[in-house]
């Protein structure tokens, strides 16, 4: 039985729902972009990726007393050029690693706020949660960047290929001790998580012995960081004499499969391949991954009906296309066009993860970030975005552990975990900071163009995009549509209008007159009209405090 496709109307409400779950927030320009397109056309566009992003660049310098000087640190890389192809000088460690990791996370946050209208960034973060590495454990910018690029490259690709490349990535080898796993001392850390967290799921029937046997299959892979004493970019290598060349026999769960022990330079790849074939042949993989997708994109709780009507057919599709190079695109296409995805039982019924709250708010309010001509300011602002998301409880690339964020796996709370009495004030403060404070750069910058800048939300520009900002009813209505995930009653909108736009007065023309005076002459001497920017800020400040902004 295939997944039931959605055949109902595809209006603005449905488009908003689709975009909130696939992009970070949904703004008026996004709506305009997709206006008039069918669900199929919209989803196809969301799942069609252009070329990937340019790599992160050097935005750092040292100041030895004569002002900022990029040649004083990581000197082989010119300011503004990418560092990802240049090995680090061990004599400069850990300073260069710190700077590069900062550059990486800023760039990464930048990719979120300037995302194109595709699923790429959200899907990359999905994998980055599903198969996470912790930046402070890996603490290697080259590995972190390569890992992120690898996940992005396979975001809608073939699952087995993704697991393969993840297994031999330098970042994962380091993170879960795979690089120390050898015939003399098997380390089962990676093998366990490969089964438990990355492919099969915990408790489905594989045994402790299977974990230990898989660890033996994976022996011999390690990381090379220098060549004859010269530092090189970290590379994965297979060292035959560290590999366990004995036969590996698995439990009845894997049909007592024996992976024949091999020796020589091709042994690692051959046995890894056999291991992944054996694991991916289990239906549990498709079910587990489809549940993970569901909890990330649709809803936290999976009841028996959803399991039968959504997970099982989606998993069947996953298996049917398990050799397709775009397997995950096919699966996501089916999920995002399914009747279930648009049902009332899941709409607006998740707590926004911090990244959606912060990046979504920035996009909804058209936050004016610096452009490429102010590279240093741009990276500084992006780093602030990273910090805000982290402050709200989701430091990207630093999940609490190898299981990723609890909101995607912790029964029975799931996404509710994002919002507790510690994180709620942080979420509230973060959005307030975007609305009231914005970002500033300081005077000590290498680039003159980046010095002493201030970037603020322009609420007048935001409401100018509304259909009729002169009418306070329209303004309030469209502001709630923009920021709230569920509609509010006319009574609430009337209260907001009267309290803020009319300053407690009775007649709509108080707002219309003041707004008209102000937009015609921002230097107006009319005292009421001078209040217009502040009034908008009060209104938006109230809106941000509503529970309706916390859902998506």
């Amino acid at each position: 039985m295939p997944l039931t496709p959605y055949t109902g109307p595809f209006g603005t409400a449905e488009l908003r729902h689709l975009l909130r779950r696939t992009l970070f927030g949904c703004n008026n320009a996004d709506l305009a972009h997709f206006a008039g397109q069918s669900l199929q056309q919209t989803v196809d566009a969301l799942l069609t990726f252009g070329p990937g992003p340019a790599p992160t660049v050097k935005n750092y310098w040292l100041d030895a007393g004569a002002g900022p000087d990029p040649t004083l640190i990581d000197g082989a890389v010119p300011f503004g050029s990418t560092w990802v192809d240049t090995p680090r000088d061990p004599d400069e460690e850990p300073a260069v690693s710190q700077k590069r990791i900062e550059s990486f996370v800023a760039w990464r946050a930048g990719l979120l706020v300037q995302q194109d209208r595709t699923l790429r960034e959200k899907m990359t973060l999905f994998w980055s949660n599903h198969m996470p590495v912790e930046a402070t454990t890996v603490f290697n910018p080259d590995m972190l960047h390569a890992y992120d690029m690898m996940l992005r490259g396979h975001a809608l690709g073939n699952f087995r290929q993704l697991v393969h490349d993840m297994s031999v990535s330098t970042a994962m080898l380091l993170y879960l001790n795979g690089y120390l796993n050898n015939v003399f001392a098997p380390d089962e850390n990676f093998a366990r998580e490969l089964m438990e967290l990355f492919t099969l799921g915990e408790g489905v029937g594989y045994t402790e012995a299977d974990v230990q046997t898989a660890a033996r299959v994976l022996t011999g892979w390690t990381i090379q960081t220098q060549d004859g004493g010269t530092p090189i970019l970290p590379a994965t290598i297979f060292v035959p004499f560290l590999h366990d060349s004995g036969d590996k026999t698995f439990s009845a769960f894997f049909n007592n499969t024996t992976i024949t022990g091999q020796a020589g330079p091709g042994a690692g790849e051959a046995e890894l391949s056999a291991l992944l074939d054996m694991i991916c042949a289990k239906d549990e993989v498709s079910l587990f991954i489809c549940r993970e997708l569901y909890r990330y994109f649709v809803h936290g709780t999976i009841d028996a009906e959803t399991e039968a009507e959504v997970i099982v057919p989606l998993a069947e599709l996953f298996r049917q296309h398990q050799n397709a190079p775009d397997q995950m695109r096919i699966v996501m296409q089916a999920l995002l066009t399914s009747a279930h995805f648009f049902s009332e039982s899941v709409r607006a019924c998740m707590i926004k993860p911090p990244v959606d709250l912060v990046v979504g708010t920035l996009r909804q309010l058209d936050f004016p970030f610096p452009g490429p001509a102010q590279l240093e300011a741009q990276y500084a602002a992006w780093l602030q975005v990273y910090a805000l998301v982290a402050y709200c409880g989701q430091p990207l690339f630093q999940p609490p552990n190898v299981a990723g964020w609890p909101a995607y796996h912790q029964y029975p709370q799931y996404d509710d975990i994002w919002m507790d009495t510690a994180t709620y004030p942080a979420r509230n403060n973060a959005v307030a900071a975007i609305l009231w404070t914005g970002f500033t750069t300081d005077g000590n910058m290498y680039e003159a163009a980046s010095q002493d800048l201030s970037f603020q939300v322009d609420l007048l520009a935001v409401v100018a995009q509304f259909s009729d900002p002169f009418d306070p009813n329209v303004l309030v209505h469209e502001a709630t549509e923009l920021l709230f995930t569920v509609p509010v009653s006319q009574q609430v909108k009337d209260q907001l209008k009267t309290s803020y736009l009319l300053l407690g007065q009775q007649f709509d023309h108080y707002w219309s007159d003041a707004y008209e005076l102000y937009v015609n002459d921002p230097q107006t001497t009319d005292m009421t009209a001078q209040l217009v920017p502040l009034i908008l800020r009060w209104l938006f400040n109230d809106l941000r405090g509503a529970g309706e902004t916390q859902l998506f």
Partner: protein
Amino acid sequence: MDRRRFLRTASLATIGGMAVRGFSSPLLAALRARDLNDRVLVVVQLYGGNDGLNTVIPLDQYDVLSQVRPHVLIPEAQVLPLSGLDGTGLHPAMTGLRDLWDAGKLGIVQGVSYPQPNYSHFRATDIWETGAHHDQLLNSGWTGRYLDLEYPNYPAGYPNADMPDPLAIRVGGPIGPGLQHQGLSMGVAINNTDDPLDLSGHIYNDPLSDACSGGKLGMVRTVQNQTDLYGDVIQAAAQSACDHGPYPTGNAPGAQLAQALKIVARLICGGLKTRIYWVSLNGFDTHAEQVVATDHAQGVHAQLLQGLSDAITAFQNDLAGLGLEDRVLGMTFSEFGRRIVSNASIGTDHGSALPMFLFGNQVAPGMLGTNPEIPPGTTYQTNLAMQYDFRSVYAAVLTDWFCLAPEEVDQVLLDTYQPLPIVDPAGCLSANVHEQHQRAGERLLEVYPNPFVERTTVKYTSHGGRVLLQVYNEGGQLVTTVLNAPVAPGTRTVEVDLGPLPAGVYYCRLQNEARQQVRNMLKVR
């Protein structure tokens, strides 16, 4: 009313904005006379699975240990001996806990685990926090169920005069499954008592819809209100002038845990009636480089244990200095121990049974159980035998610390576990605080209309005995005594006239024997 339904439909009118201001008033601070019998449990969670064999070291098996775990074994001469206990010692980094042992404030329970142990961090953590059987999935934690038993009306009608404070506080991390009860968090989480607890500022709310999003929105609003309601009491407690002892700070091992425990000490000293505090220390998953190859007494695990030991000792000494030692019991746990046989990554893989520490003045000092035995023919797969079920430790805490009756302990742990003799039961012999806690949230006192202009009606419930009804002003001065007489059980009304008094906030207080409640009154114009 069932909790889920409350979350979905309850209007938050019962805990409106007025209460926020009310609870920071001098009057309520005075009314909240601290009951020194109120007992506190501090749970210290060690994430990652602690290597018990290198924590509490069975010296009597040193020979066999040196064969099976050569990569990580602590040099025999450096192991800290435990006075009065031959053949067992502590990791050399734990001088603090050794001192607590000497002072009779440390208990060790050996070989704690459960049947069919799980070796997955996440499932094993879940089992420890919920108290589930190996094949059982529970949607409530063991402390969550205890708090539900003690405060069955929560969250309806909370905070109230009996329990003005959070039932539980998680410091320095999110609330895990342990403090959940059927989808409801029984505690609040704080990272820092200086965090601003910002009132959202949003004024107008629609009623919740029946859709899925309506339930979710109700949850959001509940958190918003909890945040605001408890923000004041937490900050007030944190700011109270208690003279704290020194704690590890900066880059010292365990500084983060120490700072969390210091916050706990501040809040206890500041008068919170909170029953459970939950703190944690990360990093015990020592698959590789657990020790320094050239000096096994140094390394990651040594730093972790020193941090744990120093932080707990600082906390215990601080409590002693503050005169709070008799009210606080501490307990450490980790989701599992580690394998007997070490690996050549100079680490240890996931194992099963491990020791737990209990600390405090009321701990029955000593070691329960025996040194773990390294079985003959131990291989990489061999695990230590279980001596005690972890739920028997919980049963002991519930029985001898929180003074529950045996059937109540069963109700919390969802099965029968024998309590272990690890806490001095003397303090429970005369306890009857339950009735009071269980009545908390029952509304014995109503004021209507409210706000009012001159006169209003007070409706009160007597459980028999003397009833005292008083009105206080916002500054804590007694304005009038409405009633002070024996009243037969039942609900009655009495009219109160505040006509001559200025407009403002007043408090109506009911005392009926051990029960007392307070309601805000707002007199306008």
